């Protein structure tokens, strides 16, 4: 058992975005979070990373109370729970290599970071990640000049640079065409398989969720209404998650 959420609730001005979510997510799985727009998918991932604070509920990781973390320990947790965003969120004017190196910022001293003093070891790891995902040729290019698919792969390389325990991907392919979406999902699947990485991925493309995930969690209006393997996702489950939406 690595990540366990219990009774996780998030309210905005009294309105529940997430309603008492209780989940155990074991190490190494590829979990897809599905649901209609506004169901609370992004809220869930952001709570785990602690980009936002829950109203009530608990987050535990390997016996550590994540909600209690402060300062350096909180920053280390954020590095552990790497986020990947729909809009890639790279620094467009910085080169690809530096973008990947910013994945180390959660674990290194501010002063040497400020001066861009990355160690040779960190550079070697960053270049190795770029090479591994066929991005070696782009290392000196400004990230903003890459195609969307390339940018998302750089963003995932940056996430890997964090040496994370899990990757939280919020609609990683929603801004990409079908081909690039597949390339990015393949990359996540490969990391899951080869590195044993735990992946939690918000998807509104149900087909992608069905074919890549080993477990689906369906959210509707902030509550978990489905939890099981894709094979168990039948018509009734589909109605529970998506309602009457076609």
């Amino acid at each position, binding site marked *: 058992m690595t990540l366990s959420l219990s009774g996780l609730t998030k309210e905005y001005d009294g309105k529940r975005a997430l309603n008492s979510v209780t989940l155990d997510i074991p190490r190494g799985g590829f979990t897809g979070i599905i649901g209609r727009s506004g169901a609370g998918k992004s809220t869930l991932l952001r709570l785990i990373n602690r980009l936002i604070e829950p109203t009530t509920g608990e987050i535990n990781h390997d016996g550590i109370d994540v909600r209690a973390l402060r300062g350096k320990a909180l920053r280390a947790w*954020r590095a552990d729970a790497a986020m990947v965003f729909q809009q890639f969120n790279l620094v467009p004017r910085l080169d690809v290599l*530096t973008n990947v190196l*910013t994945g180390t910022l959660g674990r290194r001293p501010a002063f040497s970071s400020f001066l861009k003093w990355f160690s040779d070891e960190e*550079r070697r790891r960053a*270049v190795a990640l770029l*090479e591994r995902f066929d991005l070696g040729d782009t290392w000196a290019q400004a990230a903003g000049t890459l195609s969307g698919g390339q940018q998302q792969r750089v963003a995932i390389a940056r996430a890997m640079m964090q040496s994370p325990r899990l990757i939280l991907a919020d609609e990683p392919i929603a801004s990409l065409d079908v081909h690039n979406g597949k390339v990015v999902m393949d990359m996540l699947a490969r990391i899951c398989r080869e590195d044993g990485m735990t992946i939690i991925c918000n998807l509104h493309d149900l087909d992608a969720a069905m074919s890549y995930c080993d477990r689906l969690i369906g959210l509707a209006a902030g509550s978990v209404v489905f939890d099981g393997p894709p094979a168990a996702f039948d018509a009734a489950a589909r109605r529970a998650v998506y309602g009457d939406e076609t």
Partner: protein
Amino acid sequence: MVAGARILAAEAAQRRRRLLLWIAGFGALSLCIALAARLADTSLARLIDGFPHIEGFFAQALPHLSSEHLLGDVRTQGSLHYWFYDIGKWLGLIATSINMALMATFLGVLAGWPLSFLAARNLSPSPAVSLVTRRLLDLLRALPDLVVALVLVMALGVGPLAGVLAIAIHTSGALGKLIAEANENAPMQAREAMIAAGAGWVTQMRFAIVPQTLPNVVSYLLIRLEINVAAAAAIGFVGAGGIGQEFMAALSLGLLPDALAILVLIVGLIMAIDMISQAVRRRLSGARA
């Protein structure tokens, strides 16, 4: 992994080149500062030496120029050179004023840039810090540099240091406010990613905001430098160093043709800086279009 080694080597070479550029830049700046200090000394000495010129007290403001001797040497009455007899010293003082502007702009951005992050409403560690910093920047900007220079001349003595500090204070406020606005308008996705990766506040600013606002900051700096050259020439009027101080000295000694000659140089300087700065900014924006 052979390709990896090649990338690492290329990247190391790129870093070496950038380091050299930085060192060269700082070297040039230090040289300017040293030069400004030397020139300031000699201008003060010359100011006192200037008293023997007192016999020219009632000379007319307009120089006597004659067309046949216009290009004659410094001893020929009616030549341009006779009018601008002290051109070497004046050009030196123009250089001092330019250096004063450079130093004031440098010091101003050194203080104003960090403050701009605290002032930006959406980046500041707290709304209170943002509010206080913005009021502070307003205050720095509102202080007229001539008045500040006058006070500093009394506190620190006659010379360029007072002028540099006075202009730097105003510059920090003006640049701080402008850059704060650029910071507020920078896209926030990259910063969100830095927070999510566990980066601290300073590194968030360094990696998510600075790279995105850098072109703005450079163009603000150039405009400010242009303004500051004019300010540095004028601020000498209250004894704060540079060519303006020489102008006031010539006026108070009644050397009206000298004063007029210096005024011509000041106007020429400001026009030249204006043109250079415009050309540079056009090239910069063109290069990014």
